C-alpha cells in the first residue's frame, strides 16, 4: 500500500499535484497568522480597490482590506466546512446505507425511499430553506450541507454493502454465531468503506464548492469573516476589478481541483479493477 502510494507519486503527476495544492492550502490556513501580511478584517479606505502590487499581492477590496490575507484566512472556513461536512455526512450516510443494505427487505425499501426523497430534492434550494430555518452562520450552513449530502453516501454504501454482504466471510461469521450488529460493524462496513473514502476525498472539493455557492447566495458566515464564496460574491460588484472576485474564486477552484486529483488518484490506487492496469 505504502509502496504503491510512492509509485503513485512518481507516476501520477496529477495526484502529486493535487496533494501539493491541498497541502499548500491547509498549511496556509493553519499558519495564516504567520503568513498573512495584514489583518483580514481591518479596513483602510485610503487603499480601496487597489490592483495587485508589491504591498498587496492580490490587491485590496472595497474596504481596502488585503485580499491575499483574506484568502489565506478564508481557507480556514472553507476547508473546515468542506472537511467537516464530508466527515459528518459521510459518517451518517455510511451507517445509514450500511444498515439499509445489510438488513434489506422492507427496511431497506423504506430507508432508501426516504433518502431518495432528499436526493430528488433540489439540493441548493433545500440548503437555502434549511439555512433560512436555522439562520445563516458557519455551522448552520454546514448542517444544511450535511442534510443535502448524506443520501449520496448512503446510496453508495448500500450498493457496496449489497455486494459485500454476499461474501462468504460474512456467512462464515454468521456461521460462527456472530450477531448482526457485529457482522455489520466488523465485517461489512470495514470492507465497504474504501469506495466511500474515495468518494469522500473527491467530495471535499464538491462541498467546498457547495459551501461557497451558498455563501455566494448570501447564506454562510456573517461578514466580515473572510470566507471564499462570500468574497467572490462581494467581488461581483467590482466586476472590472478582476482581483476582488478572481483570487478567492481561484482559491476555491484550485482547492476543488486538488481534492479531485487526489480522489482520482486514490480511486486508481484502491480500486482493484483499475489497479491491475498499473
Amino acid at each position, binding site marked *: 500500500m505504502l*509502496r*504503491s502510494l510512492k*509509485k503513485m507519486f512518481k507516476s501520477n503527476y496529477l495526484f502529486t499535484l493535487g496533494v501539493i495544492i491541498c497541502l499548500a492550502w491547509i498549511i496556509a490556513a493553519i499558519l495564516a497568522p504567520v503568513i498573512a501580511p495584514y489583518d483580514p478584517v481591518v479596513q483602510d479606505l485610503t487603499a480601496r480597490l487597489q490592483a495587485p502590487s508589491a504591498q498587496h499581492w492580490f490587491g485590496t477590496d472595497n474596504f481596502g482590506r488585503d485580499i491575499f490575507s483574506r484568502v489565506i484566512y478564508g481557507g480556514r472556513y472553507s476547508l473546515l466546512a468542506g472537511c467537516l461536512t464530508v466527515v459528518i455526512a459521510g459518517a451518517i450516510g455510511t451507517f445509514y446505507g450500511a444498515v439499509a443494505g445489510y438488513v434489506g427487505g422492507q427496511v431497506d425499501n423504506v430507508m432508501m425511499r426516504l433518502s431518495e426523497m432528499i436526493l430528488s430534492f433540489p439540493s441548493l434550494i433545500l440548503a437555502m430553506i434549511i439555512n433560512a430555518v436555522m439562520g445563516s452562520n458557519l455551522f448552520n450552513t454546514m448542517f444544511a450541507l450535511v442534510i443535502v449530502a448524506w443520501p449520496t453516501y448512503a446510496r453508495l454504501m448500500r450498493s457496496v454493502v449489497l455486494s459485500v454482504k454476499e461474501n462468504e466471510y460474512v456467512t462464515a461469521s454468521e456461521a460462527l454465531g456472530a450477531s448482526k450488529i457485529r457482522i455489520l460493524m466488523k465485517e461489512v462496513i470495514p470492507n465497504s468503506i474504501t469506495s466511500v473514502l474515495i468518494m469522500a476525498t473527491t467530495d471535499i472539493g464538491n462541498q467546498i464548492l457547495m459551501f461557497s455557492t451558498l455563501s455566494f447566495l448570501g447564506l454562510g458566515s456573517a461578514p466580515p469573516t473572510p470566507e471564499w464564496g462570500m468574497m467572490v460574491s462581494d467581488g461581483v460588484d467590482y466586476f472590472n476589478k478582476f482581483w476582488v472576485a478572481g483570487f478567492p474564486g481561484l482559491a476555491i477552484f484550485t482547492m476543488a481541483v486538488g481534492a479531485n486529483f487526489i480522489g482520482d488518484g486514490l480511486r486508481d490506487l484502491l480500486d482493484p479493477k483499475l*489497479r491491475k*492496469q*498499473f
Partner: protein
Amino acid sequence: MSQIETILEIKDLCVEFKTVEGTVQAVDHLSYTLHKGEKLGIVGESGSGKSVSSLGMMQLIPNPPGKITGGEIFYKGQDLVKASEKEMQKIRGNEISMIFQEPMTSLNPIIKCGKQIAESLRLHRGMDKKSAMTEAVRMMRAVGIANPEVRAHEYPHQMSGGMRQRVMIAMALACRPQILIADEPTTALDVTIQAQILDLIRDLNESMETSVIFITHDLGVVSELCDTVIVMYTGHIVEKAPAQELFAEPKHPYTVGLLNAIPRITKDRPPLETIEGMVPNPTERITGCSFSPRCPHATARCRETEPPMIQLSEQRTVRCWLYADKEKEA
C-alpha cells in the same frame, strides 16, 4: 503419421508481466510444434503460463503490463511475434481462433448471438449481412444448438452456460480456422455438459481437420481428448509426450506427482499422494530446476542448473536431470 505437416512452431517464447510486486516471467523459453489435425493438450497448475502462452500466439497479451520479450512463433512461415497489428487481425479468428474459459462473460451481452458469430464471417470472408447470418445459423446447428434460427436472435444472457460455450465455439470455428485454441473451455461447466462439449470438439477436429490446442488443469479431460500432452510448470514445459504414453508412464517427477494426486474412483480408495509445498511465487526467481524445491528426487545439480529439454524418444521430451543420461541412450 508418417508425413506430418507442421502448422505452428513456437521457439523460445518468453513473456513477462510487470506488476506492482515485481516482474513475472509468465512464459519462459517455451518451444513446441503443432501438427495439422493434432489435438494438443496443455496441462499445469494455475499460474503455470498456459493461458499466457496461448494469448501470446494470438498477440493478445495485455500490454501493459505484459510483453513478449523473446522468441518466435512461426505460422505458415510467418513470425507472428513480428507481425503487425493489421496482419494479426487477418489471422485472428480466421486462421487461428480461440475460445475462453468463461462462457458467461466472454460474449458481448448486448449483441445478439447470431450477430456475434456472423461478425467474424463478415470480417474475414467479406460476406454480406444476410449470407453471414445464414452461415452463422448453420454453424450454430453444427455445434448442436437446437432451434438455431430462433437462438441466433437471442442475447447471451438468455442462454445457459453450455449454450454460450457452443456459441463461442461456433464463433471460433465460423471461418474454419487452421488452429483452435481452447483455453479451459469446460472448466465452468458441469460434467455432463463438459462431456457434450468435448465430444463436439473431437467431432469438429475430425471433420474440419482443425488443429486443437486444449488448455486445462484437468488431466482427465486431456487423457480423453488429446493426442499429445504438454505439462507446464512455472512457465516451462516440463514434459511433452503422446497422451497415452504420458499417463501410462509419466517421466517428470512433477507429472508423476500430479497424476498421483488425482482422486480416482476405485474400489479401495488409496490415500492420495501429494506434492509437498506450493507453486512458487511467480515473482520469485528460482535457480536451477524450478520444481526442485518440491521434488522428492532433487539433487544439488537440480538446484544449481536448470535442466534442458531432453529428447527421450521421437515424441517424448522431458525437462529433468534424472533423464540426462538416457538421452544419450536414445
